[in-house]
């Protein structure tokens, strides 16, 4: 195998990690790019997987271990592609690296955080809490190293963290860097972002603190989340007596996200269990157009249906209003089975928003094609650039992993040609 080029994997979520590890473990060089300061992507923010209800942390940990044990993988965090040129087997890629301002000497001792005077909204918890300007992305972050948000950091003028760091791990003068990378094939594992719920009319998402999205619910239920895993409503920390899940919030709607994301129904079923486990007297209402639990997931649906305090209504919620003067909300829909309107008063509402392609608005500068929704069109006739996981279409974690493994093979075929 003379002069073999690397495989470039774009995106360090579960799909990107999978492609990288699978290719590296059979002896290929892999460069893994990640835009944020840590690997794990959306999966790192999940509380539990459906249908087994196990936490994603163990799967991630195994993968991080596989990365650490393998010399073939090079990881670049806070990295974004600026340009791609060349062709299959011989790509020249320009990558921009944003400065972390913390070097590899960091031991994660947390002294810096104690002295940092600046706060920032915590993107990891979807803005539900705050971190200091220097922070650890989350307790299982990989690489396990602190990072400074240069957008809010006051820089050398403040410098309190530099003073307190015993290991000289903080370098406020670190500059952005541009690197040229040679790659034989490229795999986009750029994943997804939650659909912007604020754009949905009549849902009051940006006005009502107690209208949250399903991804926020994952953080509320997670033990490393903003409430340490206790599900309470955001406005006043009240315990949950009643909660409504609004399926297809913006999904299957030509005004917003025209397709089905395939996971939101199962995510809500799973989250209904979170609530019922924490609050045995609570009522959970699930409003849906069609409940999509395909294949083996139907068993999971049937299990959830057995709980008589989880109430299913066939009919989409089209209006959410405040129930003044309390912080409660009224969700309004038509139960299409009875043919009558339902106005249910609940403590909080979870919008089951779908998955929008991450790169829909910031397309990677190369000649790849996208489908009508902004997902990467995987043109297998055209060797060289592939897409894995949700970059390609909305699927669940298990399918993403299977797909990412397959794409490792496609990438290998291309560098061996």
């Amino acid at each position, binding site marked *: 195998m003379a002069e073999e080029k690397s495989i470039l994997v774009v995106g360090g979520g579960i799909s990107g990690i999978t492609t990288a590890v699978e290719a590296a473990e059979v002896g290929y060089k892999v460069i893994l790019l990640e835009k944020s300061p840590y690997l794990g992507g959306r999966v790192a923010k999940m509380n539990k997987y459906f249908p087994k209800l196990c936490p994603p942390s163990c799967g991630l940990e195994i993968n991080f271990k596989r990365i650490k044990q393998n010399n073939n993988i090079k990881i670049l965090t806070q990295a974004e592609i600026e340009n791609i040129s060349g062709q299959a087997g011989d790509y020249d890629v320009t990558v921009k690296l944003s400065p972390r301002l913390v070097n590899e000497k960091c031991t994660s001792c947390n002294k810096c955080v104690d002295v940092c005077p600046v706060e920032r909204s915590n993107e990891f918890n979807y803005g539900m809490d705050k971190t200091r300007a220097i922070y650890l992305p989350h307790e299982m972050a990989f690489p396990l190293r602190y990072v400074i948000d240069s957008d809010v950091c006051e820089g050398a003028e403040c410098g309190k963290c530099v003073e307190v760091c015993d290991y000289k791990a903080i370098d406020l003068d670190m500059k952005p860097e541009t690197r040229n990378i040679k790659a034989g094939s490229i795999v986009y594992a750029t994943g997804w972002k939650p659909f912007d719920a604020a754009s949905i*009319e*009549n849902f009051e998402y940006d006005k009502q603190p107690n209208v949250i999205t399903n991804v926020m619910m994952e953080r509320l239920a997670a033990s490393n989340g903003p409430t340490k895993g206790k599900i309470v409503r955001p406005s006043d920390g009240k315990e949950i007596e009643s909660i409504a899940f609004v399926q*297809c919030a913006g999904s*299957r*709607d*030509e*005004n*917003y996200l025209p397709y089905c994301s395939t996971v939101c129904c199962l995510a809500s079923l799973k989250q209904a269990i979170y609530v019922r486990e924490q609050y045995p007297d609570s009522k959970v209402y699930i409003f849906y*157009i*069609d409940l999509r639990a395909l294949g083996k997931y139907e068993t999971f649906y049937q299990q959830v249906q057995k709980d008589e305090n989880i109430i299913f209504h066939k*009919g*989409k*919620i*089209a*209006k959410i209003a405040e129930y003044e003067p309390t912080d409660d909300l009224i969700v*309004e*829909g*038509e139960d*299409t089975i009875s*043919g*009558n*309107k339902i*106005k249910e008063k609940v403590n909080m509402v979870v919008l089951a928003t779908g998955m929008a392609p991450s790169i829909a608005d910031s397309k990677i500068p190369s000649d790849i094609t996208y489908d009508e929704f902004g997902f990467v069109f995987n043109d297998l006739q055209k060797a060289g650039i592939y897409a894995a996981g949700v970059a390609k279409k909305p699927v669940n974690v298990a399918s993403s992993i299977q797909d990412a493994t397959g794409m490792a093979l496609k990438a290998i075929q291309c560098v061996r040609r």
Partner: protein
Amino acid sequence: MSDRYMVEPDLKAVKELTGSGAGTLKKCFQCATCSVVCPLSGDTRPFPRKEMIYAQWGLMDRLAGNPDIWLCHQCNDCSLHCPRGAKPGDVLAAVRRYSFTKYAFPKFMGKLLGDAKNLPYLLAVPIIIMIILLASIGHLNIPEGEIVFSKFFPLFYVDALFIAVSMFALLSAGIGVLNFWKDMNKSSNLWVPSMGLFPSIISTATEIFGHNKFKDCGVNKDRYNAHLLVFYGFVGLFITTNIVLVLVDFLHVETPLSLIHPVKILGNVSGIALFIGITLVVLNRLKNKDITSTTSYDWTLIGMIFALVITGFLAELTRLAGIAFLAYPIYFIHLVAVFYIIAYLPYSKLGHLLYRTVAMVYSKYSGREH
């Protein structure tokens, strides 16, 4: 499910609907967003979600005798928020159009008015009748001297013709409405009379004269002004015409009335209201063309109302200006338009003033509403 129901889809009717403005019908996936965003729909058995599936399945018996299709005022809030572009507003409009045909008496009139292509035949009827009438009294020429329309078309004949036409229209309307009422009774399964018939009528009239329903509309709230002007324009012209009839035929007052005669003023003001109103109707339709589709069927009635009001004013103006060779023919065309509006009212879109009024009364009377 204790009651079993044999679905008998009327596929021909479904085709008819999709061909008459409800082409988006099959896109509906029954999410019921429409029933919730509808500002006019109530909490029990709201519309238009159920009407969408009746229409998809061709359950025409459930649609025709259903007052809800008339409680809809096509605000189009449903069409705006519909996640599928199924345009429930347009579908219900097509269902109403279907109803005009269904309840038409005689039947063939419904068919004729149901298709915009038949306009030439429908216009030929008054033209031929009036030419024969004028020929029989030897008036098929432009009279000399000062322009007085009754010299050309004696008012006695005008009144005789239009009273006959009105009587026929009234009879057709009566039969149509009666059959509609029977169908509503048949399909209604929640008869909880909350209001007597007379109070229901009063309450309905209050709503219509106040145009309350239009005020609740979201997307199409501009139509409040447009429809109000058209409505009161017609009411004013109707009153004017009847007063003139009494003045001329019973009190033997000479026409034309002077421009400052109160009845003349009422007529002119009503005409202006109608003109502004119908112009706004057109502007609103053009503005909302992404949300609602407008068919040639809709344009036909709008066109006829324009023809009515424009020829009305042109006849008046050319008469005042003394241009005889224009004034008399325009007056003739004006009468053709008047004939169209009155004679075809029960079968044309204007028939909504019958069926919607009756449906509103029925829904109050039967406890459907409130």
